[in-house]
């Protein structure tokens, strides 16, 4: 690989035009993490616009999920800085990062299986609709008010995916696709500025994926938030992402619009291997 060429690509901005004048919601610079001797992610530079839908792609084991775990502080980065809407997240915990405005879904679904769909969303609303433990135990008026508020808000959020009717089901008993959608609703309930989706279309059939694409656009338009997604389904990525970053061996090897990425020889090489020169 030609190093000079990579840096040339990185310097290109992929923020869509409408977000040019706004502060980017996420600015990572030189982010990296080392596990023992293994450099899992290195020199990760990424900027996401305020209402951008961006994609992070790459072969298996490239470090995409690790990058998400760095952004949400499941792992503390070894190097580099993350600016969330201009605020440095250095030293924050996963919980604090969520409060600051990053919500995520997980590649291997992590729902609260034994609780109902509605309760799952209400847990997402934990920091939005507050009621103290004491007033809950004593059933003070504030408890009834906030419970009603949370119930209505939860149903409203579930209606994004037409899931109001499932509100009473146990989350663990839902079909796979519905569980993925519920995870997105739960993440949205935390009122994020940036939504991280880790393989949202995994295990979905083509029609479900098409519906998901529509919904992701709808979410961006309604909530005016930025979405960064990891996905292997190229139809989805090329269909909705405005900017795409390609990760390989823990480093970003290319950034650009879907068209640029599709034509980029470095990316093709990362996915398909080098053409034999003879």
């Amino acid at each position, binding site marked *: 690989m030609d190093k000079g060429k990579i840096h040339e690509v990185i310097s290109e901005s992929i923020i869509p035009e409408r977000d040019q004048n706004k502060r980017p919601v996420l600015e990572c610079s030189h982010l990296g993490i080392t596990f023992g001797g293994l450099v899992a992610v290195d020199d990760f530079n990424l900027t996401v616009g305020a209402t951008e839908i961006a994609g992070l792609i790459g072969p298996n084991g490239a470090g995409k999920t690790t990058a998400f775990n760095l952004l*949400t502080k*499941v792992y503390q980065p070894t190097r580099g800085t993350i600016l969330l809407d201009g605020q440095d997240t250095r030293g924050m*915990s*996963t*919980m604090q990062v*969520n*409060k600051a405005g990053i*919500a*995520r879904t*997980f590649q291997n679904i*992590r*729902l*609260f*299986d*034994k*609780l*109902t769909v*509605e*309760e799952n969303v*209400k*847990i*997402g609303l*934990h*920091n939005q*609709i*507050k*009621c103290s*433990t004491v007033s*809950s*135990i*004593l*059933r003070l008026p504030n*408890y009834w008010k*906030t*419970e009603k508020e*949370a*119930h209505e808000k*939860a*149903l409203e959020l579930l209606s994004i995916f037409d899931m*109001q*009717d499932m*509100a*009473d089901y146990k989350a663990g008993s839902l079909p796979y696709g519905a569980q993925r959608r519920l995870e997105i609703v*739960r*993440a949205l*309930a*935390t009122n994020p500025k940036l939504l991280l989706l880790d393989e949202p279309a995994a295990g979905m059939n083509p029609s479900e994926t098409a519906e998901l694409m529509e919904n992701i656009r709808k979410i961006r338009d309604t909530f005016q938030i930025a979405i960064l997604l990891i996905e292997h389904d190229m139809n989805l990525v090329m269909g909705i992402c405005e900017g795409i970053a390609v990760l390989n061996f823990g480093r970003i090897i290319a950034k650009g619009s879907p068209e640029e990425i599709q034509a980029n020889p470095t990316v093709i090489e990362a996915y398909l291997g080098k053409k034999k020169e003879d």
Partner: protein
Amino acid sequence: MKGKKTLNKTSKNNFITMGGLLLVYVIVLILKEGGITTNLINGQLVPICAYMIMAISLNLTVGILGELSLGHAGFMSVGAFGGVFVGTLMQEVSDSKVLCLLVAVIAGGLMAAVAGLLIGVPVLRLRGDYLAIVTLAFGQIIKSIVNILYVGLDSEGLHVSFIEKCEVLDDGKLIISGAMGATGIRKLSTFTFAFIVLVVCLIVIFNLIQSRTGRAIMALRDNRIAAESVGINVTKYKLLVFSISAAMAGMAGTVFAYNYSTVAPTKFDFNTSILVLVFVVLGGLGSIRGSLIAAALLTLLPELLREFSDYRMLVYAIVLILVMLGTNNPKIRDFFAKMFARKKTAKEENANG
């Protein structure tokens, strides 16, 4: 609306539990006043209530928060001796029995809550088996400390000493005397008082579970990483559960201690912790009603099995194993489910007809 229904369903279940408990209370009270129950059973009423409180409070930690605790008797011990100590001081000030007991129970609960916080702060970085081991050690430490603790009260004030007996003037007495434990306790606990404490604890737990706080706690149980990712403060809620659970165990301890004239520290040892854990597991993790029933039956069972004399504990163990096997056997479960379903459909038909 559908969402409303779930709330009602859980609430309905809670009301059934409450109602059933009240009914049992009234029946037992009538039997007791009518002189039908034996002294043996009358003597067990307060301990049963205390163990019920222990079971539901441990269920809060094990079933709702999902952390195994093997030192619950330690909190009971703190509550028992702390409560008796404060209660004895109160007797100097006030003659009212109920007031003394009430202050003692609250003090016992508070002291145990503080103990819960103290152990919680360093320990809650641990999870699963490691946490269980530390709570086990905590229970043993409490027992050992009380075993060598001497507290005396006389006209010169309080005397506290470890290992060696402290000197008390003739006009005073030893409240806690080492391995003998608390001696000369006035038997203030009554069945009604113990029952009221139980109901208060029950209401607190029911209301807690069905709230924002309760959902956060259950979220931690189901998936900690996901809970953190939606902004739930893990440390805060774990500490909260630990201290609430400890406070209830402490109250149970005070109620328990005031049922006897002497309480030894060995009463609250590892075996007691395991006994309470058995109540919780047998009644079903997370099932408050199950904990209550299991606690009542398993406290009564050894007493009812007295006619087997030497073979008492053997029969007790066999009954335990049979119940465990029975409730886990899919065929037996199916059988009960069918029985229940048939009853229900019959009822509905009647209602429709």
